[in-house]
């Protein structure tokens, strides 16, 4: 899926049948062998032979659920480090220990008929499961994806077309279209075929144009970089439109026990920090202290 993103499909019936949009799974990428055997060893980790990495991934990695197909769970993610690189390099038949579904899912308002989904880069992927559910409840769904293209050399030539955008984002947009969502892609560097600007501009334009909808009918769901979400939150607040954001944070236990994966909220004093793995990953946008980091 291009060199910067990857997809993986996992046979996981229990998770597939209980997963709700916005939830995630926790994946143990390297497996410790701590067995009682004739040749016991303190700790042996499996890791890909082709990898020059010496160090196994210890902590499980969280991944939002992109899609569910029958008994299978599909994840789509950006390759950002050791863990994602190893995961991207896996080929069947491989088996992984995973826990899920985890976290609080999106909760669409049944009384609002228009959903606007805003995804920045890989933030678009978890919105797909939501889009499916929204379309099933016959909602009108608009999807705005923000992407930048990655060429080996820096280039500001606006003749670069959509096909050079992080191809995974355009593939994802196609998937949304197949569901009957209306979509647009934004590119700050002005790739042809994309709106020249930020994905948050698309949200603003949509709300300003009215599109025949009153704010009372609309709700916003967003996932992407922190600064993008902060802007989405601000726009939604100005329009009085409810907005749910799917956040991420470095995790250790992934279960809520260690208090590692927190984000700052506007609650006071000791209630300030909330766990992405428990109180989130979906948060009401107005609950978050966007200036808190």
């Amino acid at each position: 899926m291009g060199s910067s993103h990857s997809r993986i499909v996992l046979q996981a019936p229990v998770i597939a049948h209980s997963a709700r949009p916005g939830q995630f799974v926790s994946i143990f990428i390297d497996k410790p062998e701590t067995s009682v055997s004739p040749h016991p060893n303190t700790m042996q980790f499996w890791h890909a032979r082709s990898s020059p990495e010496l160090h196994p991934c210890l902590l499980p990695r969280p991944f939002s659920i992109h899609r569910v197909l029958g008994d299978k769970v599909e994840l789509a993610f950006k390759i950002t480090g050791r863990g994602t690189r190893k995961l991207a390099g896996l080929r069947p038949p491989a088996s992984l220990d995973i826990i899920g579904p985890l976290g609080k899912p999106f909760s669409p308002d049944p009384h609002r008929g228009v959903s606007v989904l805003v995804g920045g880069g890989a933030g678009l992927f978890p919105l797909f499961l939501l889009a499916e559910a929204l379309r099933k409840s016959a909602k009108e769904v608009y999807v705005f994806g923000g992407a930048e293209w990655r060429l080996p050399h820096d280039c500001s030539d606006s003749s670069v077309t959509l096909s050079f955008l992080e191809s995974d984002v355009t593939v994802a947009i196609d998937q949304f279209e197949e569901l009957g969502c209306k979509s647009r892609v934004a590119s700050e560097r002005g790739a042809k075929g994309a709106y020249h600007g930020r994905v948050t501009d698309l949200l603003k334009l949509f709300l300003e144009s009215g599109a025949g909808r009153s704010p009372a009918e609309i709700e916003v769901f967003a996932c992407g970089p922190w600064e993008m979400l902060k802007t989405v939150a601000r726009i939604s607040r100005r329009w009085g439109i409810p907005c749910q954001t799917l956040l991420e944070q470095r995790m250790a236990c992934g279960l809520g026990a260690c208090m590692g994966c927190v984000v700052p909220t506007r609650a006071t004093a000791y209630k300030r920090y909330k766990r992405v793995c428990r109180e989130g990953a979906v948060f009401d946008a107005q609950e978050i202290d966007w200036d808190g980091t």
Partner: protein
Amino acid sequence: MEPDISTRLGKLELHNPIVIASGVFGFGTEFPEISDFDFDGVGAITLKSITLKPSPGNPPPRIAETASGIVNSIGLQNPGVEELLQRILPSLPELPCPIIANLSGSTVEEYRELARLVSSSARISAIEVNISCPNVKKGGVAFGSDPEASREITSAVRSETDLPVLVKLTPNVTDVKPITLSVIEAGADAISLINTLRALVIDPELRKPLLGGKYGGLSGPAIKPVALYHLRQAYLVAREYGIPVLGMGGIGSFLDAVEFFLAGASAVAVGSALFWDHLLCKRIKEGLVHWMKEHGIHSLPQLTGALQEDS
């Protein structure tokens, strides 16, 4: 015959010597919700550290994985002792093992008050005193690096409770022996060590510390040799007074546990490894029993401190 893996830390009797360390298990509710978590192999659990007043903890990020370890800068986020006693403990389901409370304070008086309050709960079987906290009155130097401050805190806690008192030492000292001696003289029933190693994680692109709390504590497999070193030093003092030691730091397998017993531990605790192996306690218990049988060891006291040092 099945080896006897029971042990004691002062008056605290444990059916098996594997304790869950403070900080990784919250207040006991999250892990059991996961489908395959099993209390088999868990000798006791230590609760997340509690402070007198609720504490928000450090800004995120709070976690960074390193080579063979984790650096955390949680910052002791917890709802405070009142919430623990009024709401959390009363609604905690019955657990098949004793519960150890872990206390953190910024002044001696806070430790005293915490010990008094926590001792009133029937759910708590022992108190572990976290003296790695910065001494606010002495410019933020950890209590646990100063034998006198460690003595004061231990005395204060001792005077407020009849529960077994474990004092948890910090490895961020040149020599744990004077601290060990001070806390034993002040009435500790057991020593536990090590806490995390002081660490710094840097984001080279931002040119800033990666963690919100700036500095953090290193745990995990990387620290095992350091833990064993400090454990050994503490044991050489503690054994002169018949005081047991709870050893921890990077344990991830039963053989690691055996090494800790040999160095002087009467019980062991696991922390970080629980994050990547939820059934670790069960595996260690089974592995330990198997190993003891193979080596003709009938009970743990035969192993504790049996490290052969010629000098």
